[in-house]
């Protein structure tokens, strides 16, 4: 166990923050977590430094944030706000965390409009888009290696890629078919592995 384990609050020691405290902390997270590292920062601010959430609740929230649709850090902020102060807390946490990044991306959008006449702009952005795609590819390869190895999983993954990526079929019908099929497969495999 890590030495900082003692700092993590028990259920009975939890404190309910005011909405203003929630606003200040998430604004801080929104401003200082640029370039990633949102999750460790949220953990430090709401579990270690302030006893707003138990370790168990934080981990549950992290799991929900990953599984459900939506940007993971935004989902996690929503969950923490909800646990700490209900609906109002959730709204404040999400809004204050997105606001700084929104301002920056809008400023970059304005700069782009001013620079769009220069050929260099589009050349540099093509490079940046390539780096962005590379990050997606690297993540995709890593996640693929962690998937269950069986025919159904391969067919579903490949099928979704071909339908959306190559045939440009709208995501709604593809996902409506693929997700239940995939969950059913995982459900079936779960029983198989349990017996084995």
């Amino acid at each position, binding site marked *: 166990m890590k030495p900082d384990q003692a700092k993590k609050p028990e259920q009975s020691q939890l404190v309910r923050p005011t909405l203003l405290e929630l606003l200040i902390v998430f604004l801080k997270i929104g401003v200082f977590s640029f370039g990633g590292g949102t999750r460790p920062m949220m953990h430090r601010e709401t579990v270690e430094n302030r006893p707003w959430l138990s370790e168990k609740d934080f981990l549950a929230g992290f799991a929900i944030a990953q599984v459900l649709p939506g940007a993971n850090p935004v*989902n996690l902020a929503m969950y923490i706000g909800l646990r700490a102060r209900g609906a109002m807390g959730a709204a404040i946490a999400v809004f204050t965390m997105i606001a700084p990044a929104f301002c920056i991306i809008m400023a970059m959008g304005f700069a782009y409009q001013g620079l769009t006449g220069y050929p260099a702009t589009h050349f540099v952005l093509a490079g940046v888009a390539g780096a962005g795609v590379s990050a997606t590819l690297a993540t995709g390869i890593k996640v693929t290696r962690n998937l269950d190895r069986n025919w159904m999983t391969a067919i579903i993954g490949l099928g979704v890629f071909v339908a959306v990526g190559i045939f440009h079929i709208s995501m709604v019908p593809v996902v409506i078919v693929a997700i239940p099929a995939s969950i059913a497969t995982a459900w079936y495999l779960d029983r198989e592995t349990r017996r084995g």
Partner: protein
Amino acid sequence: MDDNRYIGLIAVFAPLSILSFGGGQAIVADMQHQTVDVWNWLTGAQFNDLYAISRAAPGPATLIAALIGYHVAGFLGSIVACLAIYIPSSVLVYYAASWWQKHPESRLKRSFERGLGPVAVGLLFAGALAIIESSPMTIVTVLNLFVCTAILYFTKFSPYKMVGVVALTFYALHTVGFGFA
């Protein structure tokens, strides 16, 4: 006229919000298809430029919605697009969070977690393909793709630093005479 644009932004982004499994990267392919081919708001090249900006900017990848919203209907458009991309998924998380807590460990939850994996992977690669397809293919851009992917896969180099390094490299290349022409 303008009202139609706001409704269009909501019609495009609200469904994508519910479908963004694993975050914004999963919906890039459909977002490009909708905004370029279906609604004709952007050219493929413009979409790629906005995608690049969203990858260079801090914050979630879904903030590309703000850039598209601004392009379509000005500042109010960016707000409408943001609300459309964040509210549906947030409402879902809001209700699912309470259910999730009441059912700590079940076969259904395990199946749900594992079952979304292959779908998310298919969508990730579809998004990557969508951007690659509308990128200009030159020796420099193809090399960039392979080198960046290899570095990000095999090392722990931060994707944000990668974006910075690539931007500077491409600017330098352009200055010394490399470019699309």
